[in-house]
């Protein structure tokens, strides 16, 4: 059954590598912007949801509710990072549909541009990683995905030009839009001459590092009709995790070249929404690396395995192509806030507020949230 809720407000801070304000201030700014966008007074928020690892240890729920002067009747946290953000509406739907809350805020922010260990410290929570991986210099995401990419190229015949076409396509989207962190054009020749970080991955294959935050506000579809902007219905949400721990998932998953849980999470979301893959007008996928975009496109069921490289290279993922992907430029060229910007962008597209990057007649959009070994899929929109 499709959830009876809608997203009614969105907010995000400006994409920058290093912000002048601290992370808590950035989160509060984004939450206030989202509430203003919805036309809902801060004191009326009575529920709050986030991921379950990053936010609770940096900007906890109680801090945010105190800044809103709001009394919480519900709080929830699921997965971490990307899957947690995409599944914020899953938690909100459980609370709102059960009458436990009326107005639920989902927020997320990072200060990895200024925090010394950036994104690399996160995996320290796994002892086996510290014992059997870090001593070999297997200590950062580009290295993990570099291993995957080399093997994927062998198994599926992916070419450097196809991989690079993801970076080139998303840079075009970011420049068309403006306001993102990357401001210079990127040609395929620029890509092929860029230095390797962990071969075969080059600098443009890797996501940006950002200080920033985003937020979105959810309420029942009934109340949503009285909000400031046209509501964007939550059509379906899916969450799934495979039984491979976060310390093992980059090396031990038997299906190492398949995005863990992506197909099952997508199936759940599409079944809930009652629509087909072909009903989706655009995708916002967790593009931590170019290779992860290709794998998700395949594993969510939008291409056959091994065909996503050709899909991008032929321009089908462009705005104006048959299935635009990462319409704001994504983590590779717009900003990297682990996917809260993907939800914000999907709402803009479905409201018709995406300006130069508007996907014509967009009715349904899907967001893919990736947090190994978890995956979350959020489908927004309706038939109108």
């Amino acid at each position, binding site marked *: 059954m499709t959830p009876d809720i809608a997203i009614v407000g969105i907010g995000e801070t400006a994409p920058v590598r290093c912000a002048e304000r601290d992370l808590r201030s950035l989160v509060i700014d984004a939450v206030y912007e989202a509430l203003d966008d919805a036309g809902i007074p801060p004191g009326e928020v009575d529920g709050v949801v986030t991921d379950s690892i990053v936010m609770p240890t940096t900007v906890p729920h109680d801090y945010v509710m105190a800044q809103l002067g709001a009394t919480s009747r519900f709080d929830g946290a699921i997965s971490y990072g990307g899957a947690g953000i995409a599944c914020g509406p899953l938690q909100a739907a459980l609370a709102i549909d059960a009458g436990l809350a009326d107005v639920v805020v989902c927020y997320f922010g990072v200060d990895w541009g200024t925090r010394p260990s950036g994104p*690399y410290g996160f995996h320290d929570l796994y*002892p*086996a990683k*510290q*014992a*059997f*991986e*870090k*001593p*070999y*210099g*297997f*200590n*950062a995401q*580009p*290295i993990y995905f*570099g*291993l*995957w*990419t*080399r*093997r994927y190229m*062998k198994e599926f015949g992916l070419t450097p030009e196809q991989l690079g076409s993801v970076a080139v396509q998303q840079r075009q989207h970011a420049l068309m839009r403006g306001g993102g962190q990357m401001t210079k054009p990127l040609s395929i020749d620029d890509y092929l001459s860029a*230095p*390797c*970080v*962990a*071969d*075969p*991955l080059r600098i443009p294959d890797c996501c940006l590092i950002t200080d920033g935050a985003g937020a979105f506000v959810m309420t029942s579809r009934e109340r949503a009709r009285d909000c400031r902007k046209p509501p964007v219905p939550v059509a379906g949400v899916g969450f799934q995790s495979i*039984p491979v*721990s976060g*310390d*093992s998932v980059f*090396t*031990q998953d*038997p299906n*190492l070249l398949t995005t863990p849980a992506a197909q099952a999470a997508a199936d759940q979301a599409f079944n809930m929404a009652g629509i087909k893959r072909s009903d989706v007008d655009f995708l916002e996928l967790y593009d931590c690396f170019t290779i992860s975009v290709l794998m998700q496109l395949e594993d969510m069921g939008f291409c056959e395995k091994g065909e996503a490289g050709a899909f991008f290279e032929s321009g089908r993922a462009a705005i104006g192509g048959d299935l635009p992907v990462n319409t704001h430029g994504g983590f590779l060229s717009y900003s990297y806030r682990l996917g809260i910007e993907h939800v914000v962008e999907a709402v803009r597209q479905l409201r018709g507020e995406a300006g130069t990057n508007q996907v014509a007649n967009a009715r349904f959009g899907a967001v893919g949230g990736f947090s190994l070994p978890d995956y979350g899929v959020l489908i927004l929109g309706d038939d109108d």
Partner: protein
Amino acid sequence: MTIDEMTSAADIAIDGFQPFWDAAASGELRFPACCTCERFHWYPMVRCPYCNGSDIEWKSIKPIGSVYSWTVVQRPFDTAFKNWTPYIVGLIEFIGAPGVRLITNLVDVEPQAIQFSMTVSPAFDLYDTAESRLMFRPKEMPTGSNQ
């Protein structure tokens, strides 16, 4: 942080990790296997992830592996590794321990000479108990071998 200040792997006090390092120090390669279903798993776990068995034994295997994938790291992501670059991280599979893949550094080989499924063996002679790093190098084939 310098390499000297970095926490060595052996300092991480986790139950069940030590047998790997003890084996490496004595020139052996051992991985945990379930006594009930006989399947190997990696990393060490409290229960067998396949049959939930609690009787787990470290089994010695023939120290020959095969390269599943590798990457040449050009930029350090931790200051402790700034003098390492470029270095080769390899992911190795073992006929003797199906399902196990081991992260290592490939040494005594030029990056362009590495191939998928290349046979490698542990560099036990380079193993240092203070660093607890078991590196691998291409296996020398007996004279007359076609490989």
